[in-house]
């Protein structure tokens, strides 16, 4: 590198570049560049996110608003709380709400507790740890509707509605296992099955499906906990259960709060796992819609021949408010219980 080449290097485009640069600076191009990069996202968000927020609220307050409005633009809809009143007084909606809450209240604690137990156990072994971790994660990479069909097959009694119930009838592998241990087979999901049997199947499936994510998060949390706390506890010969309740759970509380909150949010939007097991009839044969949920109600409302946008919107807003309230309560509780 000679001195000369540095000194003699010419910059012929200087003047032109300078002018362009000055122009771009004058129109403050740098201030606009960001918006240009964002424009595709913003356009789509305006159409499919911003407008819907506004419009869905509008629908909810337009009484009985439905797809009839598209056919006949002369129909006017009164502004009011009619949709909310209708939905909240409608027995079927209340059933859907009840189903949703029941599933949430049962599955979130069970899956969280199980996941915590599994994560702690996984964290305390060396051999096979990664292998088991991978296995536990498998349910996550499945199609929840497809595997729901497998669960349905496992719980299903084949041929109950046929005349010949004996020789070629399978009670389903779950009943077979119950029989193997000397129990009586149960009609889980077939025609004539009971509500709580249905719920039981749903709880088993939802928990099975929810475990991978929770285990992953909690195990990640456990692995980031400073080992020194455990060493200190060991030196003080703290019993294992006390280590669990006094060290592990408090240190893990942010992660536990996280899986509980996301669990509740997911739980209130439960829908496809029920479709997986019962199909879009949302219930066993002869009891259509028995297990329908909030989300299912919303879909049914807009999927009918007359699309009841108003009622669906009212239901969606109620769902949003419930999720919002539950999240707030959860955050409040976890703030008190979280130790750092």
């Amino acid at each position, binding site marked *: 590198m000679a001195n000369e080449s540095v000194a003699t290097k010419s910059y012929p485009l200087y003047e032109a570049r300078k002018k362009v640069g000055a122009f771009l600076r004058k129109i403050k191009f*740098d*201030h606009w560049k*960001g918006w240009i*990069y*964002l424009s595709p*996202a913003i356009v*789509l*968000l305006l159409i*499919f996110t911003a407008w*819907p*927020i506004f*419009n*869905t609220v509008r*629908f909810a307050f337009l009484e009985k608003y439905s*797809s009839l409005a*598209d056919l006949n633009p002369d129909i006017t809809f009164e502004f009011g709380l009619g949709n909310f009143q209708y939905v909240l007084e409608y027995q079927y909606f209340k059933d859907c709400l009840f189903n949703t809450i029941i599933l949430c209240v049962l599955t979130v604690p069970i899956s969280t507790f*199980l996941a915590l137990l599994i994560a702690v*156990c996984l964290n*305390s072994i060396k051999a096979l740890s990664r292998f*088991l971790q991978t*296995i*536990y*994660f*498998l349910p*996550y*990479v*499945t*199609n929840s*509707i*497809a*595997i729901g069909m*497998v669960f349905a*097959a*496992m719980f299903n009694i*084949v*041929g109950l*509605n046929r005349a010949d119930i004996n020789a*070629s009838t*399978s009670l389903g592998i779950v009943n077979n296992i119950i029989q193997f241990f000397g129990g009586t087979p149960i009609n889980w999901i077939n025609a004539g099955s009971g509500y709580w049997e249905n719920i039981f199947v749903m709880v088993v499936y939802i928990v099975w499906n929810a475990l991978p*994510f929770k285990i992953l*998060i909690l195990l990640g949390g456990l692995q980031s906990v400073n080992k020194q706390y455990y060493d200190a506890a060991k030196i003080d010969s703290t019993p*294992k259960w006390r280590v669990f309740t006094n060290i592990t759970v408090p240190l893990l509380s942010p992660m536990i709060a*996280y899986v509980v909150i*996301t669990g509740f*949010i*997911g739980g209130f*939007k439960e829908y*496809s796992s029920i479709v997986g097991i019962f199909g879009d009839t949302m219930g066993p*044969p002869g009891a259509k819609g028995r297990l329908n949920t909030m989300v299912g109600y*919303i*879909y049914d409302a*807009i999927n009918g021949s007359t*699309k009841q*946008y108003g009622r*669906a*919107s009212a239901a*969606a*807003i109620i*769902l*949003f408010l419930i999720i919002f309230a539950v999240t707030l309560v959860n955050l409040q509780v976890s703030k008190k219980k979280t130790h750092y």
Partner: protein
Amino acid sequence: MSEVKNVNTNPEGTITTMVERDIKKVTARQKVVKVISQTIIYIFLLIIALVVLFPFYWMIISSLKSLTEYRYNIPTLFPEKILFENYLVAFTEGKLDVLFVNTLYVGLVSTIFSLVITVLSAFAFARLEFKGRETLFAILLATMMIPGELFTITNYSTVHKLGWINTYTVLIVPFLVSVFYIYLLKQNFLQIPNELYLAAKVDGTTDLKYLWKVMIPLALPTLISITILKMMGSWNSYMWPNLVTSKDSMMLVTNGIRNANFSVSAMGGEGSAADINYPVQMAAVAIVSAPLFIVFLFLRKYIMKGVSRSGIKG
């Protein structure tokens, strides 16, 4: 002061007794306790693993059984005769070829566009200075709290008005922008030191070239995670496609397989319409599940990393 003296002079004090314990006995007991507790833990974990794996196992062996064998009173844990025919029947009866092509097309196109939009937006939020940046980002994050069903209602009405029902567009466009992906990638971009951007600027690198040559390679793991999550989302989506497609030719995998008629009677067997030909259905489910499994086998790390940061299925 006197208490301290007590401990030192009193040979029966607690500290001394601990030292005088029979070390051998303690060691032996310690070992036994450890072995027992480890055994219990392993048994528990293996039982859970069995429970987790059993549905997959049942799916596969059922899919290889004949209908008659499937209906045995006492089930067989391994098929007497392995029947691959079920897969063939499932493939043709379920029209899985159409479903696969549709899903792949929708998945690929929406992933590519989604990635481009996400990268551009994340770059703008992470590196470019403009008025209203923080406000806009806060608004975007706030929309993440709203359940998707609230959007679906209006979007459904919108796409109806646009005449998009039963098109690929309707399956792709409404979900191209994910605030969550933008957030994820923005965080990743922010970890890249700003000096790299300044250095590139000094060297005369344009923003786009910098994005392509520096930001994208450095954020590749996150981009892979996003790609996989997006593909999984397309593969698993059910509700929206079910709303906006009615034609068989436009169906995606999940709808197709749920709506497919695998009943015994539909396939010319004897039995009522409610009697499902489970071996064939299980074969169909196995086929549908296989791609995700294969992807998982190869990209386990990225998937688990992406999921641990997302918590959103699909």
